[in-house]
């Protein structure tokens, strides 16, 4: 028996990852036998900075925690702060918040679908899905003025109202995504190669999902019915009776693998479209801010002592913010952020054990990791001195897809 154990570090910089993280794997042949994950490459000390600033500054700082879902953290921020400070947002503002959050879910899920298509070697599918994502980004730009970092939320309301022209654009968008999502279902879920490449990969059991504290679509793909919008309903979600989407409701069985994660995300786009439609049909009239004057708001924060926990179901899972306002300054005295990837990355180690090297990109991508949230390619050498660079790893993933394609007899 020759020495067959090799050390393969992946990352911090790697094309399979949109952001930096390091997965250190020991492999025997193709099988992975030991895994360690090193985080923190994008740690910017945002919580520390937020504790030195006032609450409104920290709110817009929280928007910069995540590079993709720029409204999830502000949502948890405003919900938590409103609980701690005893402010209630007007109904219209609550509905507008929900609409923006669901628009974001649509673009984030489509982004993930594109990334996972790229990971298994379907690059034309990546470009096609991202072309479809432009529509929702255009609507967000129309409403907020930005494709990302919308700066819409405020403690006790929203900063911008929805106009008639926005609602018209939203209705057009709803019609567009009803058709587009149907096409996505055909392309992803009915495709035999995609199914063969993802079925059984990154399989997480229900018990394991509970143990590793998994959240969001990762937990729901494993059959756990957990969704903050359903468990602790807030804002317009309390009016709608949102239910978490789990594979057993759609196809009757749960595998908890990358295919189920795809299934859950695609059906959640449908759900988001329905929620947006409900919200614009039932949008209440009225003001959009509880305390429209920022000076008054800040002086109220300065006078208030209180603690609160804000939770929001972001596209990747639950975002939890803890606040303590101590009544001496106009910002949080303690601010703790827990993002979905913080918990979901826990699932990598058990999932990668026993998997193949060619599956690493899929396992790593399937939870839709967001390192900015969590933390806040290097040259890779195995012990023989051979360089296994990121291109090689991606090529191995594509080759496996090709092999499966051949075995299944799919013609280009």
């Amino acid at each position, binding site marked *: 028996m020759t020495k067959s154990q090799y050390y393969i570090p992946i990352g911090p910089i790697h094309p399979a990852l949109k952001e930096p993280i390091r997965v250190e794997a020991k492999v025997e042949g193709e099988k992975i036998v030991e895994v360690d994950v090193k*985080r923190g490459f994008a740690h910017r000390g945002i919580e520390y900075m937020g504790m030195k600033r006032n609450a409104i500054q920290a709110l817009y700082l929280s928007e910069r925690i995540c590079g993709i879902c720029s409204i999830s953290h502000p949502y948890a921020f405003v919900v938590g702060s409103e609980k701690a400070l005893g402010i209630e947002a007007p109904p219209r503002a609550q509905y507008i918040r929900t609409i923006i959050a669901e628009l974001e879910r649509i673009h984030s899920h489509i982004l993930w679908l594109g990334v996972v298509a790229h990971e298994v070697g379907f690059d034309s599918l990546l470009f096609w899905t991202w072309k479809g994502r432009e529509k929702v980004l255009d609507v967000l730009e129309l409403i907020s003025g930005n494709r990302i970092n919308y700066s819409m939320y405020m403690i006790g309301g929203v900063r911008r109202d929805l106009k008639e022209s926005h609602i018209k654009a939203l209705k057009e968008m709803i019609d567009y995504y009803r058709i587009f999502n149907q096409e996505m279902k055909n392309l992803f879920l009915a495709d035999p190669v995609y199914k063969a490449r993802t079925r059984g990969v990154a399989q997480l059991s229900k018990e394991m999902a509970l143990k590793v*504290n998994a959240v969001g679509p990762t937990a729901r793909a494993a059959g756990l019915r957990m969704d903050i919008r359903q468990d602790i309903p807030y804002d317009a*979600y309390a009016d709608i009776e949102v239910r978490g989407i789990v594979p057993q409701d759609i196809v009757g069985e749960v595998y908890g693998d990358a295919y189920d994660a795809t299934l859950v995300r695609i059906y959640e786009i449908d759900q988001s479209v329905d929620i947006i439609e409900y919200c614009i049909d039932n949008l209440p009239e009225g003001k959009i801010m509880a305390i429209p004057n920022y000076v008054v708001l800040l002086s109220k924060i300065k006078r208030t002592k209180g603690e609160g926990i804000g939770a929001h179901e972001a596209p990747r899972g639950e975002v*939890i913010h803890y606040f303590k306002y101590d009544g001496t300054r106009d910002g949080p005295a303690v601010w703790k952020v827990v993002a979905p990837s913080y918990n979901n990355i826990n699932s990598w180690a058990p999932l990668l054990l026993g998997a193949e090297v060619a599956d690493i990109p899929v396992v790593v991508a399937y939870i839709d990791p967001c390192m900015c949230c969590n933390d806040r390619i290097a040259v890779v050498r195995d012990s023989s001195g051979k360089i296994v660079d990121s291109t090689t790893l991606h090529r191995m993933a594509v080759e496996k897809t090709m092999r499966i394609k051949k075995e299944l007899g799919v013609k280009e």
Partner: protein
Amino acid sequence: MTLKAEEILNILKNSLGDALIEQEIKTYSLGALRKRECSEVWIKIDRGAFRKAVEEIFKLDYPHLHFITGEDVGENLEVIYSFGLFHGQPGKEISVVIKLALPKSELVLPTITDLMMGAETNEREIREMLGVEFEGLKKKRHLFLPDDWPEGKYPWRRDEFGVDDMIKHTHKSVKEIRGGKE
């Protein structure tokens, strides 16, 4: 099976006895047009009873760990755990928030990673950010901070172990940097 916040508090009261120092049930009404009540149980306990309290919570239902955080309050560190019970049932999730004071001379807590594997991330973060040792925690490598982070420096501490001397301008206002001139 689900329980109400009052019932959970009673169970904890019975099993912890005198170790339960403070208790509160916070109720919020959430929602826009149809208001919903949402309850949270906030308790403050003696540090010695921590493991017992956690085991009691695990007996009720397999919880979801929301977060572990802490604050430097001078003499002590106040460590806060939040567990979500009965998740997965519409409108029934209840947060149980446990607070405990740790004197700075003895920053040790038992680990909960044997009950919940995923708590490792949270405990490793608290360990490097506040300097609390977890008895029984296996992996002790830095998680978020770099591997060459100086020993005895904890970013969330407000005393001499804090990082104020390592930071230049990020936490100061423009006014402070320019010496009082705007």
